[in-house]
């Protein structure tokens, strides 16, 4: 397999893919870096190629930066909490033998195939709408005042929408993990006198820990860049402005490309910090 010849031809063959990927990544990154040190406001016709760290200073010191980081963290934490909790519960349920198992499992994955924009619109107009959303009808049915989710608890609403989208992903990964647990271990625990909840706590949950860390890692990386759901529902108002959304506002609403690029670089750095941190946890979990 690994002769000198096959190695070099393998390198030759993956070269185009590596090249395209590099260009795809590096060009935008380099341009962002370049703009982040420039005072570039196209609508005013300002372009000063080098202003040093001015953009970074004003982005980091603005009051919206810290709040956006906090909002991002809250949002990600909330979504992770719901998807992991719900995912474990659904995985355990779907592992039970039942009628129509195959169809049910496919249906469970369905939300993952709905585009973020579409799902946010569906939730906004069909569930959360005060006048004719399903929740309003439900509230009215029980004689309660309809609740305006998107303006009363906007952060929670977005968390619910995104969690709904990512729940299938978590469920799927956790389901495969649940299925890989040897039944003899559970039987041994049963013989050892462990009731159902102890078996869950001492046997199933530790067995799932690896899958849970993988889900957390992957989801966090994707969730840090949530955009469509916020754009469609609240437009970043009512304390739902995440770091990603702040960058968008700086570039498109304030038309300040330099400031936005600086924000983008800050976001990249923060995301990498989070990723390295998570990778270490995963690595630790994979060791044992």
């Amino acid at each position: 397999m690994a002769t000198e010849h096959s190695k070099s031809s393998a390198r030759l063959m993956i070269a185009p893919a590596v090249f395209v990927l590099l260009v795809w990544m590096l060009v935008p990154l380099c341009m962002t870096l370049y703009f982040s040190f420039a005072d570039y406001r196209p609508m005013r016709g300002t372009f000063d190629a080098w202003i040093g760290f001015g953009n970074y200073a004003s982005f980091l010191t603005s009051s919206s930066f810290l709040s956006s980081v906090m909002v991002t963290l809250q949002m990600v934490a909330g979504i992770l909490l719901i998807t992991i909790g719900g995912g474990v519960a659904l995985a355990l349920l779907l592992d039970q033998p039942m009628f129509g198992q195959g169809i049910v499992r496919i249906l469970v994955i369905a939300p993952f195939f709905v585009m973020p924009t579409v799902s946010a619109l569906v939730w906004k107009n069909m569930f959360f709408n005060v006048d004719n959303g399903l929740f309003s009808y439900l509230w009215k049915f029980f004689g309660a005042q309809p609740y305006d989710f998107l303006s009363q608890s906007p952060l929670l609403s977005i968390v619910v929408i995104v969690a709904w989208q990512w729940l299938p992903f978590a469920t799927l990964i956790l389901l495969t993990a649940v299925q890989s647990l040897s039944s003899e271990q559970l039987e041994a625990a049963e013989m050892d006198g462990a009731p159902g909840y102890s078996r869950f706590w001492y046997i199933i949950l530790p067995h799932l820990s690896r899958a849970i860390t993988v889900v957390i890692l992957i989801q966090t990386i994707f969730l840090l860049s949530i955009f469509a759901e916020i754009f469609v529902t609240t437009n970043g108002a009512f304390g739902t402005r995440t770091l990603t959304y702040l960058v968008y506002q700086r570039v498109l609403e304030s038309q300040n490309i330099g400031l936005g690029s600086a924000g983008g670089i800050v976001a990249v750095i923060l995301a990498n910090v989070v990723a390295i941190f998570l990778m270490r946890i995963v690595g630790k979990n994979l060791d044992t």
Partner: protein
Amino acid sequence: MGRITLDKVQKKFGEVEVIPPLDLTIEDGEFVVFVGPSGCGKSTLLRLIAGLEDVSGGEIRIDGKPATDLPPAKRGLAMVFQSYALYPHMSVRKNIAFPMKMAGMDQAEQDRRIAKAAEALNLTDYLDRRPGQLSGGQRQRVAIGRAIVREPAAFLFDEPLSNLDAALRVGMRMEISELHSTLKTTMVYVTHDQVEAMTMADKIVVLRAGNIEQVGSPLELYKAPRNTFVAGFIGSPKMNLLTGAIADKHNATTIGIRPEHLDVVESGGTFTGRVGVAEHLGSDTFFHVHIPEMSEPMTVRAGGEVGLRHGDTIHLEPRAEHIHRFDAQGLRIA
């Protein structure tokens, strides 16, 4: 105390009857081995006793108390699984402590029992390791340790040695026998290996298709197999089962002669044949002898240094007192 009584116990999976109604008594302190070919229902029977499967009919009593509807944990039995079923994320100490923790035993007593079990099983140096860091034999001992600390009424072993290599298997066989003689607790042991059954058991239960073919001490089964199945299953190498004219001579449908009960003679003899494969084990030599009037080769045990080679002619004489006779139904003729 650990006397287990099965009274017309029956198990069906859907329409398929895996175990037809079956009666069996396991006396306190006995080492009972369930043996049979794969798929004979021996593991299912063990799981019925453990409570991991529900019986479809009949009753199980442990120490005279009905246990049929008790959950596994309440039966006071401990089980050692084929895959050991250790908890991979817990240290050896925590693995062994788990059943006691579940029973809510106080910490001092737990520590005392763990220390005692670890000492008995040579695990003291490994208590803080994870199962993944142990060898097969050590894992097996941890699984046994986890069973011992509960001080159960009886131990159930489900093919515990089948994942070990041959040398380790012999060692663990001794250790389990040793354990039985020190603890004097009832043990029920499932295996498909008749050597394990012969060497360890006080009482062997031979099963075929869920039916008990014969129950008895190893020597009883060896000396007086009740039918051709038991005759062929117990003993290594297998008993030669012969039919036809030679059987008619003994007024039987089938006769059985064990390889060790055939003598190689210089000339004459009842059987004359050609030596096929010869297995030299040093202490013994097993010859597969092709005899013209028989379809299957006969197995013969000879001494370690017999100068016969492939293709040589061999003369055999069975020892008359060791010929087993079976009738048309395969049952032993006394």
